[in-house]
């Protein structure tokens, strides 16, 4: 097994030198395996270090453009530096990097004054995942024609897998919207409003909708494979004026609900 090999030792030392300070012990240890004088070694290793951290940081900025916009590039780069050391990349595809960044931001002390930032990051990762999601087969509701209307309450729906539901105490969809590159309107955001967000690509292009509390409960119940009657009742329990009919029609029309059947889950 190659575990005690010189190559493995060298690559492990190189990794440590990249993740530690340029003047640190890890660089000195790697230096024993390099040609040239130590000042020159440090300089050349610093170039690799800038490259490595720069590439990973750029990947994070690509996945989290709104967070970058909110905190500014300098703050983001510093946060990224801490994140990269604590949460190494585990893929040869840089596009995969950063799934745990929202959790890191939630616990990153310098960002404590921006309590909404982690939820915004969650939304951004969801958006990135949705944008790369596999295509799905066309919506099919032909089976509804064979179901008697009095049995509609027993219907269970298949929800498009290419959507994400997020609940936040903050207006994350609004923050996302006003920080898009093509947005030119008012930047004022009412930070007192919690949001229940539904992001998806069921319509084709990305859509980020804010749901009312009853609609959110209704959607979550349908997603959990409750029957239409059960889901409607759960929503009515939250808001007795909730009218599920038009909401259901919209979701079927947009492709968010993909099929219906009477089969038990």
């Amino acid at each position, binding site marked *: 097994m190659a575990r005690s090999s010189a190559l493995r030792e060298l690559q*492990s030392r190189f990794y440590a030198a990249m993740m530690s300070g340029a003047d640190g012990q890890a660089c000195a240890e790697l230096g024993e*395996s390099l040609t040239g004088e130590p000042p020159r070694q440090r*300089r050349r290793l610093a170039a*690799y270090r800038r*490259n490595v951290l720069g590439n990973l940081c750029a990947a994070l900025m690509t996945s989290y453009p709104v967070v970058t916009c909110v905190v500014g590039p300098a703050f983001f780069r510093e946060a990224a530096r801490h994140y990269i050391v604590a949460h*190494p990349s585990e893929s*040869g595809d840089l596009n995969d990097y950063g799934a745990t960044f929202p959790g890191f931001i939630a616990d990153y002390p310098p960002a404590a004054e921006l309590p909404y930032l982690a939820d915004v990051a969650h939304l951004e990762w969801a958006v990135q995942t949705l944008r*790369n999601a596999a295509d799905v087969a066309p919506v099919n509701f032909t089976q509804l024609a064979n179901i008697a209307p009095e049995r509609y309450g027993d219907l269970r729906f298949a929800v498009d897998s290419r959507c994400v539901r997020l609940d936040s105490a903050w207006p994350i969809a609004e923050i996302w919207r006003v920080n898009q590159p093509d947005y030119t309107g008012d930047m004022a955001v009412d930070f007192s409003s919690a949001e229940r967000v539904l992001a998806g690509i069921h319509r084709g292009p990305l859509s980020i909708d804010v749901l009312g509390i009853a609609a959110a409960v209704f959607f979550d119940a349908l997603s959990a494979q409750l029957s239409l009657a059960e889901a409607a009742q759960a929503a009515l329990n939250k808001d007795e004026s909730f009218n599920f009919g038009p909401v259901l029609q919209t979701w079927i029309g947009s492709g968010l609900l993909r099929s219906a059947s009477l089969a038990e889950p």
Partner: protein
Amino acid sequence: MTNRLPAQAGIGLRTPHFTDVLALRPNVAWLEVHSENFFAPGGDSRRVIDAVAERYPISLHGVGLSLGSSDALNQAHLAKLKALADRIGPAAISEHLCWSSIGGRYLNDLLPLPYSEEALTNVCDKISQAQDVLGRRLMIENVSSYIRFAGETMTEWEFLAEVARRADCDILLDVNNIYVSASNHGFAALEFLNAIPAERVGEIHLAGHETDAADETAEVGESSDDDFLIDTHSRPVCDAVWALYIKALERLGPRPTLIEWDTDIPALSVLLAEAAKAQVLLDAAHLQASHGPLVRAA
């Protein structure tokens, strides 16, 4: 399956040019993409690669397989590459003679290998495994480097030639990387070039580099009189690299040639103008190959 890239000039297709390339269908012989940027199972990137693959021969150029790592080969990464290749039928697939991960943790950079027997055996084994899965030869590219390791037992060109022989793979010869490494380590670029088995070279890369000037970037404890070259892919190809490319064409004959530009990416027209320069030299090399030297050496 063998390399089916035409021996003409191509360009690297990068995200800022997706829209222009799809709309304008520029007259370029082939396109190269970074394989990993098209691993996603759906979305815009998938639509783009499927559309361009219908129109152009595609070279899939990987940056993340980490063939030189002492870790086991990442089979999940390789499976994604194979799925992409099976779908679009690329004219060629290439990777780098480097490592980028250790202990399952990735630095996502093209890091230099020590030119030792152990590293040679390891990387040849990984290349063979990858070629077995992909069912075809890979082209392996020489990278730029800024450091050298103590106790190396062969030169970079000996290492590269031996990799091609042992792993039975082809070579993607990056002429800019030869120039950068020759400058950084003080060897003669022509010595490298002349040692490469010509019949193995399936593609040539050209790119721009920058000088890391010590009086601007050196920090405390670093050497302040050490200018060296960094492989940035951020600028036009420099005159010295064009000169080395002409030498390469003289020695190898016309080969598929790519202009790489990855940082400070210019307008598509600028990139195409660089490719046109390479095409002029390739046209001359094609003429020379079919008619003999156009100009007799004095």
